[in-house]
C-alpha cells in the first residue's frame, strides 16, 4: 500500500513575519522556512503506517520553488522513502496544487493521499478537498485518528463539539488535524541518509497541467498594532467600562 503525502514549504511558525513594503506579500528574504506543521503530522502518520506494516511505501511530494527540496529532504529524514518535486515559480494556490497532484496521482496510483488540513501561511484549508473533488475520491478531513483495515479507512474527524467516525473505501484522501500524532525529530544520521534517497523533479508542463494562479492577491496587510491600554481607578469603573464601552458583559 502506497501513501502519498503532499507537503508545503512555509515560513517557520516562530518567525515574526514582515509584510513587503509594496504589500504584495510576506518578505521571505533570509526567513527560516520549514515543513508546514500539519504536513509534518501527515508524514509522521504515513511513516507510522509503514512501521506498523500497513503501508509499503511513503512518497512525499511538494509543489513549488526549487528550494522546496530542502523540505522534501526533511521528509525523507523523517522516514519517507522517496520524494517528488513539481517545480514551479508561480504563486501556488490550492486549485493549482490539487490539479498538479491529480496528474501525479495518475502516475503514482497511491492508496492513501495524506494531506495536512491546512498550511499555516495561507490558511486556506482547501487543497485536500479540492483534490478529492477532482479525483472523485472519498475523503476524511480533520482526522484525529486513522486506522486502515481490510481495505477500508476508518477516520475519526474533529468536528465542532465532538468527534465523528467515518469509514471509506480506498483510495482515500485524508487531511490531518493537530491531535493526530506528535511528529518525531529528524535524527542526524537520518538526515544524512536522506541525502541518498531518490528525489524526482517534474515541471507542471511535463505532467501536462497548468498551475497558473486563479486568484489575485490585492494586498497583504500586517495586523494593526495593539493600542496602549488604560488604567482604571476602581472595580466599579472597570465593570462600567466592560458593560458600556466594550459591551462584553451584559
Amino acid at each position, binding site marked *: 500500500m502506497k501513501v502519498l503525502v503532499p507537503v508545503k514549504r512555509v515560513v*517557520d511558525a*516562530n518567525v515574526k513575519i514582515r509584510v513587503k513594503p509594496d504589500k504584495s506579500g510576506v518578505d521571505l*528574504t*533570509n526567513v*527560516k522556512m*520549514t515543513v508546514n506543521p500539519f504536513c509534518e503530522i501527515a508524514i509522521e502518520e504515513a511513516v507510522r503506517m509503514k512501521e506498523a506494516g500497513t503501508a509499503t511505501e511513503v512518497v512525499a511530494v511538494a509543489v513549488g520553488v526549487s528550494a522546496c*527540496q*530542502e523540505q522534501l*529532504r*526533511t521528509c525523507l*529524514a523523517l522516514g519517507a522513502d522517496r520524494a517528488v518535486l513539481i517545480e514551479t515559480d508561480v504563486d501556488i494556490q490550492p486549485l493549482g496544487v490539487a490539479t498538479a497532484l491529480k496528474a501525479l496521482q495518475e502516475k503514482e496510483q497511491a492508496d492513501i493521499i495524506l494531506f495536512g488540513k491546512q498550511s499555516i501561511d495561507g490558511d486556506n484549508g482547501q487543497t485536500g478537498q479540492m483534490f478529492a473533488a477532482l479525483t472523485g475520491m472519498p475523503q476524511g478531513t480533520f482526522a484525529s485518528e486513522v486506522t486502515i483495515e481490510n481495505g477500508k479507512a476508518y477516520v475519526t474527524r474533529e468536528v465542532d463539539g465532538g468527534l465523528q467516525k467515518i469509514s471509506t473505501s480506498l483510495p482515500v484522501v485524508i487531511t490531518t488535524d493537530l491531535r493526530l500524532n506528535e511528529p518525531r*525529530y*529528524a*535524527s*542526524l*544520521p*537520518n*538526515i*544524512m541518509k*536522506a*541525502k*541518498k534517497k531518490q528525489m524526482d523533479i517534474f515541471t507542471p508542463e511535463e505532467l501536462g497541467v497548468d498551475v497558473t494562479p486563479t486568484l489575485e492577491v490585492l494586498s497583504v496587510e500586517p495586523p494593526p498594532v495593539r493600542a496602549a491600554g488604560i488604567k482604571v481607578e476602581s472595580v466599579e469603573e472597570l465593570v462600567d467600562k466592560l458593560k458600556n464601552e466594550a459591551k462584553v458583559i451584559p
Partner: protein
Amino acid sequence: MNIDLDASSTPDSDGLDLDASVAKSLFVGRITEENLFPYPRIDADEAETLRMVANSLDDFLQDKREDFRQWDRESAQPEAFLQSLRELGLFGLIIPGDFGGIGLSNAGYTRVVEQLSSYDSSAALTVTAHSSIGMKGLLLFGTDEQKARYLPKLASGEMIAAFCLTESGAGSDAASVKTKAVKNQDGSWTLSGEKIWITNGGIGDFYTVFARTGNDPGELSAFFVERSWSGVNTGAKEDKMGIRASSTTSVSFSDVRVPAENLLGEEGQGFKIAMSILNNGRTGLGGGSVGGMKACIALATAQALERKQFGQNIAEFGLIKEKIAQMAIDCFASESVVWMVAHYIDSGCKDYSVEAAISKVFASEAMQRTANEALQIAGGNGFMKEFPYEQIVRDSRILTIFEGTSEILRLYIALSGIKEAGRLLEELAENLEDVFNDPIKGLGVLSEYAGRRLAQFTPLRRDRMVNSVPATLRDEALIYDKYTAELGRVADVLLRRHGRDIVGKQLAMRRLADIAIDLFVGLCVLARVSSMADGGDARYEQAINVAKLFSQQAKRRMNQNLRRIMRNEDEELKELALFVSSERAYPWDVL
C-alpha cells in the same frame, strides 16, 4: 568543505598554503594572503544539510527551555535527556559514517555546536566535551583496531567520552601531572592518580587519560580507560557557578590495569597529543561562544525595542545603540575567525595552533562582553532569576578559564610568534658565517632579510590585498598592512633587546598577542566581507560597516599596544602588585 557521508572531511586545498601559518607570519611582518582570500564558502549541499540539522535541533530544543532553567537550578541533566541526545545522533557528529557517526567537517561541527549553545550551554558542553576533546585523541591518533573497538559505541553515545588532564597540582601547567602509569612485564600498565574537574566525568564511560610514564617531568603518555574497570572511581558532581547541569567530577585511578593496546599514540608523546587535541577542539568552544552571542543579541534587541523609559523605546538611546552595535561587531568577528580556523583544519593545514588559540581567546571574551551587556540592557530584570540573563552570564564565565586560560593562550600566541621571528634571525646568524664560504647562499639569505626589513620599515605597501578587497575597504586593508609591518618590527626589536629573556616579559608578550589577535581577527572579517555578494541591500551595507568599525577599533587598540610596548609603567605596576601581595590585603584605609 564537503560533508562526506562515509568518511570524515577530506582535505581540500583551494589555493591554500598548507604549511603556512597566517598568524605566525604576522610576527615577521607578512600577510599570507592566499590563506585569507577568498573567504571559505560553505557549499550549497553542506549548507542544506546543516540547515536541516539546525531545524531539527530547533524543534527538539525549543520546548525544553523551561527544563534547561530547572536543570541549572537543580544541577541535573536527567538520563532521559541524555538518551534523547543519543537518539538524535549528537554523540556521533564528527565520527565517520563507517563507524556509525555522521562525519561532519570541523566547520559543520562548529555550526551544530553553535545551534546547541544558543539554547543551553550545559547541553552543548556535554556534547562538546565528548567530541571536541573526550574522543578526539582516538579519532586523530588511534590505531585502526582502537577505532574499530571504540568508535561505534562512542558514535551511538553508548559510551560518553571525557578528557582527563587536569589535576589539583597541574592546571595551566599541564605538563606537571603526577598521575603515573608504570609498565608491567606483560606490556600492560598500572595507572594511579587523581584527575579533577573532568567534564562528563560522572556520565562518561570512556576516558582519555594523561599520565607520567617517564622519569622526566613532562614525559607523558595517553591512555584509553574505561570507567567500568576495577580501580576507576568518580567523585561527586561539583557545585558550580555556571554550566551547572554539566557533569564535572573528579576521576581517580587506583592501580588500574590498562592493557597495552589502550596506549594512545606513542609512549612519551602524551603532552603533544594533549595539545593537538585541544588545538583541534578549539572551534567547538568558539562555535559555542558564537551561539551564545546570537542568543544574547536576540534577547537584547527584543528587550530594547519593547522597554520604554522617558517616553521612548530604550533602543532609541545612543548608549543602548552603542551596546547593540558592539554585540553585533563582536559576534560577526568571532564567527569570522572561528569559521576560518575550522576551514584551516578541514583543508588539512598543518600549523593552525596559533590561529586556533586566537579564535578561542577572542570568541570567549567577546561572549562574556556580550552576555554582560545583554544583562545591562535588561536592567533590573537582567538581575532577576526569572529572566535568562543571569544564567547566561554565569554559564559563559567558564569560557576564558577552561581549555587554556586567556592568559596562557595569550602567552602561547606571543611566544609562538616570537619563535617564528627568532627562527629567521637564527638562520641569519648561522648563515652569516657562510657568507664567506658560500657567498651566493649567504647573499640570498641576507637579501631576503634586508627585503623583509625594508618592507617592515616602509609603512605603506599599497599593493597588498588591493585586488582582494572591495574599493570601500581599501583603507581598512591598509590598516592591517601597516600594523602587520609594525608587529614584525617590534617583535624583531624585542627579540634583539631581550633575547631569551623575552619569555619573562609577560606584559610585553600580552601586548604582542593582542596586536596579533586584532590583526588576525580583523583580516578574517575583511576577507569575509570582501567575499560577500553586494546585493545592494542593508545587510551587505551593514556588513561593510561592521568591517570598518572593527578595523577602526582594532587600529586604536593596536596603536595603544604598540606604544606601550616601548613606553610603559610595567615596572611600577609590578612593584605595586608585589607590595599588595606581600601585605596580603589592601594596605590602606581612610580612617
